[in-house]
């Protein structure tokens, strides 16, 4: 059975898998800045501004990922461990238990579509 390398994270108590090709590195949660007239949050990571996708209650960690060549940070996750696990149809098998891959496309779509309408006079 093929092995998949990646990171196990906890999201609201549930384990999820992120491939090593997506998860870049972890850092302590920096100060997040809300974009004016938008629900989006930004953070300064390594001198670069990255969008932050909130996936749960703040955990004190920020996971920097690379999606389609773009840097995106995830908050609300708690990193559990790194390793190689047998692949399953939806993710990986960890000690015989199926752990699904963290679905980010849905979160990205909500992030993009979830912007409240801009107030009058907003640029």
């Amino acid at each position, binding site marked *: 059975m093929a*092995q998949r*390398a*990646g*990171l196990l994270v906890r999201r609201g108590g549930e384990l999820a898998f992120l491939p*090593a*090709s997506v*998860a*870049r*590195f*972890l*850092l*302590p949660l920096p100060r997040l800045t809300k974009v004016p007239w938008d629900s989006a949050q930004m953070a300064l990571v390594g001198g670069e501004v990255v969008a932050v996708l909130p996936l749960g209650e703040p955990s*004190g*960690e920020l996971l920097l990922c690379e999606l389609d060549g773009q840097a995106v940070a995830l908050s609300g996750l708690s*990193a559990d*461990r*790194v*390793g*190689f696990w047998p692949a399953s149809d939806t993710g990986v098998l960890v000690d015989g238990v199926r752990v699904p891959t963290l679905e980010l496309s849905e979160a990205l779509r909500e992030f993009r579509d979830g912007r409240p309408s801009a107030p009058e006079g907003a640029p």
Partner: protein
Amino acid sequence: MIDPGPKQSSISAVQAARLLAALEATKTAAGHANHEQREASSGLARQRVELETVQESVRNLVSRGRDLRNTLQVLRESVDRAKLSALNAGLEGARLGESVGKALVVMSDEQRNLLARALDALEEHGTLLAELERERERCVAGLSQLGDGARQTGAAFSRAEQQSQLTCAFLDQVRSDFSEIFGDDPEAARALGEAAAHVRTAASSLRELTQRAPLGADALRELLSPLLALIPGPEDTRR
């Protein structure tokens, strides 16, 4: 004012004998009371020293507890960051692939396990510290009760002082009355002189006693009972 009755009567002699006996008893009781008072005063001084020591310890506990909590927070943050570093090293190993990066992943996992144990230990320390702080709160409450006790002791001192003043006034009255009764009798005058000396000693002892401790109140009661017996009743004055 005590009714003097007929001068130099047999009743007066009986009264004089009772006066001498009562004043002897008064002097003895005053001596005992003074001894007890010295013991109590010494104990009170020791308690004050202990109280000050405990208060100082509680102040130190508050300060050290704050330092410990700050240190614990720094440790927790450091271990958290070390855990993230271990996970990042593991991620690097995972990206390198199983054949190359496996060792790095295993090492980072081992490090993560150790750091997780360290975090658990720190959590336990935090719990112990919280228990210590609860103990400290109980100490503060105990000290507050001790302070209340000290205030009550002060009030007892005040009451004892008032009783001492009343006793002195009563002894002065007794002396005055007996001067009127035995003024012309040389034997009675001699007895009165001795009694007056005892009275002065007793009054002095009582004053000292009531200035030192509330235990004097009990001694005062012991002193007052024989003195009250000195006051001639209606039957005595008629005889």
